[in-house]
Every structure is written in structure tokens, then in C-alpha cells.
């Protein structure tokens, strides 16, 4: 599936408190979380982001807490994919588990500015900046993670496992 949207660029070490501040963690409803997504970095972000848009971060994206509310808020806001140089490990797991595509690609991070129109083929790891014409190759997604994505998230994957063992 080809994802397409405008990109929003952030810096290094975007932490989970910025993605979704703890003051909003008294709910786990993605739509409600989405209303405050990234607001401590850019208060207007929740109002400006459009379905399909792509977040581009630097190093260690999603560091900090284990709150799955962070990828849920991003997904709830309509963001179709996150590209970063590196991801913090719990965020990395969580994103796959809930079905938010994420790609590690330093070259794309360097070659995409806020507002650029970008397409992403997550399974193949191909990223294209339509504004500049540049193309990038992301680090391949490990086969096990691809299984989770193919199943539609970790819960579906586990469901399949439980059924087969019955």
C-alpha cells in the first residue's frame, strides 16, 4: 500500500511526553489523544495535520515512557507513517504492535523538509519526496515485524497462534 501525505519535521529525541503529555493519559481513546498530539512541540499541530501526513523525526524518536498512547495519538491524528533516523526501542515495538508503520532512514530525514509531499511504500521500505524528486531506501523491516504487520498487529498475530494451538 502506498502512503502519501505532507511531511512534518521534528528534531532529535522527540519524547513521549511531547508526543502526548501525561496530563491527557486519563483516557486511551485515540481520537481524544489525537487532539493533543505533539502539542507541546507545536500547539497548532493537532489542528493542522491531515489524514495521510507523515512525521519525520531525528534520532531516538519516541524516547521516554512506554505509553502506547504515543503511537496511538499519532495514528489517531491520521498520520500514516513516521520516518526517523532511529527510534527508541519501546516506541518501535509499540508502533508495530498497533499497526503504525515506521521506517528508519537517515537519508530521508536529511532529504525531507516540512511541507514536502512524500510517498512511502512501507513494506518495501521505499520513500519518495515528490516535491524534490529524491528517492530513499529505508532499513528493511525485520521479517518477524513484517509477520506482525501482515497479521494486522500483535493481537491478531497472537490470536492466530492461540487458535492454531487449540
Amino acid at each position: 500500500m502506498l502512503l502519501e501525505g505532507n511531511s512534518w519535521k521534528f528534531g532529535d529525541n522527540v519524547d513521549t511526553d511531547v508526543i502526548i503529555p501525561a496530563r491527557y493519559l486519563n483516557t486511551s481513546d485515540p481520537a481524544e489523544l489525537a487532539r493533543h498530539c505533539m502539542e507541546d512541540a507545536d500547539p497548532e499541530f493537532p489542528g493542522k495535520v491531515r489524514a495521510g501526513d507523515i512525521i519525520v523525526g531525528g534520532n531516538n524518536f519516541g524516547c521516554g515512557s512506554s505509553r502506547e498512547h504515543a503511537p496511538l495519538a499519532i495514528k489517531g491524528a491520521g498520520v500514516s507513517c513516521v520516518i526517523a533516523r532511529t527510534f527508541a526501542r519501546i516506541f518501535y515495538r509499540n508502533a508495530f504492535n498497533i499497526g503504525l508503520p515506521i521506517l528508519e532512514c537517515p537519508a530521508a530525514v536529511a532529504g525531507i523538509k516540512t511541507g514536502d509531499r512524500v510517498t512511502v511504500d512501507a513494506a518495501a521500505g521505499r520513500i519518495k519526496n515528490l516535491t524534490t524528486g529524491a528517492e530513499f531506501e529505508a532499513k528493511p523491516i525485520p521479517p518477524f515485524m513484517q509477520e506482525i504487520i501482515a497479521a494486522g498487529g500483535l493481537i491478531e498475530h497472537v490470536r492466530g497462534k492461540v487458535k492454531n494451538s487449540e
Partner: protein
Amino acid sequence: MGMTITEKILARRAGRDRVTPGELISCRVDAVLGNDITAPLAIREFSKIGVGRVFDPDRVILVPDHFVPNKDIKSAEQAKIMREFARAQNLTNYFEVGRMGIEHCLLPEQGLVGPGDVVIGADSHTCTYGAVGAFATGVGSTDLAAAMALGETWFKVPETIRFVYEGEPPEWVGGKDLILYTIGDIGVEGALYQAMEFTGPAIANLSMDGRFTMANMAVEAGAKNGIVPPDERTLEYVRGRAQRPYEVFQRDPDAAYARSVTYDVSKIEPQVAFPHSPDNTRPVTEAGHVDIDQVVIGSCTNGRLEDLRLAGRVLERRRVHRNVRLIVFPGTQAIYRRAMDEGLLATFITAGAAVSTPTCGPCLGGYMGVLARGERAVATTNRNFVGRMGHPESEVYLTNPAVAAASAILGRIAHPGEVI
């Protein structure tokens, strides 16, 4: 080639002779943990799997600590989901208000984690249990849900970085300073995806409470887990509490490390992490004049008895500065009770502090001490990200409990030597 302690534990629980860094493995878990923020989401996902019962009602541990006693109606609803699930599943280890504590202080204290265990928790500071020689790491709610159903989870085996602490620490330098110094040195992604093994004579001499503080903050360097090789001190702590048999693992002499870093702790001063990152550290003597509005002493990093004693030593017969609110929140009911018996609570209250029931509240800007725009806090907690304790334009400075107490007295960031 030999294995590190982390690799040995993972190999055992994966039912294998050996594992190597980078491999994806499936592991049995000895315990899984959720709290009132992460468990409701996990429970929702768990119900979609269709197994009905959790894999073991003794090993699924639920602790309401973040927003309890509940701060508002929404958080009360979340806590209720968790409480009802605990009842329906007949969980042995659900800890109600009045009997609870901050999860990472509570689990080791209650003997629910031991050497050689593999523990996952839907909370990033689950890495704290590395202090007893367990492999413990944070995951999200969906991973928790899957593990509640299966009793197993998958890991990528991490490489290990070995940290060797040599020498004797100066007065007022403890586990918090060693770990802040380390994070300041390697950075918040200095150990990304890796294990941090804390060793050396200074660790051998460090109290269990100090070791918990160090392992707690491993995630602040991006690490998957922090671990202290178990020794006599560990076993002394674990004996008499352990609710399950445990197994002590040590590294092989020829274990392979990603790298090894040595620090001379005699040269380390009490540290302060400036806003807005735990790696933005400097010695307290180089902090300059920083006026403060609030001090919080507690949390899963520094809310244990030794931490309260240290703060008490500084606050004894002194008073909190008129411009400062000091909030003390002990880690568990047992610590709270001990602090009362030892007269520490009296010391805090006489000094002009507010003393809270155990809760995460102030640490994550939840409630019980949220900061207004422009306010500054000194905190013994582990994160000082933008907005961590309240308004996005507030600031948090991380220190050890003695520095926090001295700062509360002087109304600015201060070295304990300035008041004692």
C-alpha cells in the same frame, strides 16, 4: 565465546544453551506488570485474544499508582477497569490504595522479582529490577496483553555495555549521581537497544537502594535493561522476601561486550541534570544561581528509605525556604511506615514539607504538584522533558535527595555542604 549475564538469563528463559546479540528469541516471562495508565489498554487488547484467563494469576501484577488516589473521574474509570479485571481474574498481586506503592519500589520490596527472572512491564522504568540481577524491561500495553495471555514474549537479544565504577565516592555522592554522570557522558541514546551492566568496586559498595536508582535510569540512556550482577548484598535483600525460587547468573569471564567504560567515582560530584534532558548534566557546584519554586523528593528513582533518610539528615532542624513548596512522596506504604517510625515524616513536616501517600502524581505532572508556566522544580525523579511536570514552559532539574533537600532550604539549587 562466553555470555554476559543478560544473555545467560535470556538463554535460560528461551530454553536454549546460548543466545547471541541481535537474535530474535521467544522467552518465558516470570512476571508481567501493568499500571493504571497502561493496564486498561492492555485489558482491552487482552479481551480480543480470546483466551479468557491470564496465563498465571500469581504472575500478572497490577499496580494502580500513576493517578491514584484518583485525580479525576476519567482516571477513576481507568482504575476501575483494572480493579474489576483483577477481581475477575482472581489476581494475587493487585495492590489497592492504602496497600500499594510506586510499582518499581513495590515489586522488589514484596519479593515479586528476583535474580535470574525475566520480567516485562508496561512501564519504561521496569528496568529497575536489574538491580536484583533480573532481566527486566519496559514494553507497551499490547505487548503486555500478549504476555498476559501467553506467559511469553519476544526479544531481540541486546548487546551489553559494561560500566566499571572504581574508587570511593565523595560525601553526598550516591547512585543517582553515578547514573546521571553516566547518562551525561554517553547521552540519552548512548545505550540505545543495549544492556547496561553496572559493575566495579563502587557498585559492590553501593546499597541496594542506590543500585535500584541506577538500574531505574538505564532507560534514560536508551537502554533495554540495566543490570547489577547479584552479590552477597543482593542475596541478603532477596532472602526472606522472594516469593518464588530464583537463580543467580554471573557473566562468563570471556563474555563479549559492545564496549567497556570505566569511571573513577572519587572524581564525581553531586550532579544536576538541567532542562530538558537527563543527559544535560553538570556538577552541582557549576549550576550557578538557579532560583526554584518547588522541590519533589520521591518517585521510583529516589523514593526509598535510604533516600528519605538522606533528605531527613539535611532537613533535620532546618526549614524549607519561604518561596519553596517541598513535596515528599515515599515509594511504598512500607517505606512510608518506616519513615514514620524513624521520625522522618516528623522532620519533613516540621521543616514545612507536604508529605504525600505513595503515588506517581508529581513525577509525571499528573497531579499533587503540577507546575505553572515559568516555574522551576528540583526533583529526585528521572525525567525532565519539556512539560514533564506541568506547563510546557516549566523546568525540572534532576538531583539526588540530599541536593534536593538543600535546595529546598536555600530556595535555589544548592550543594548539601552549604547547609550542613
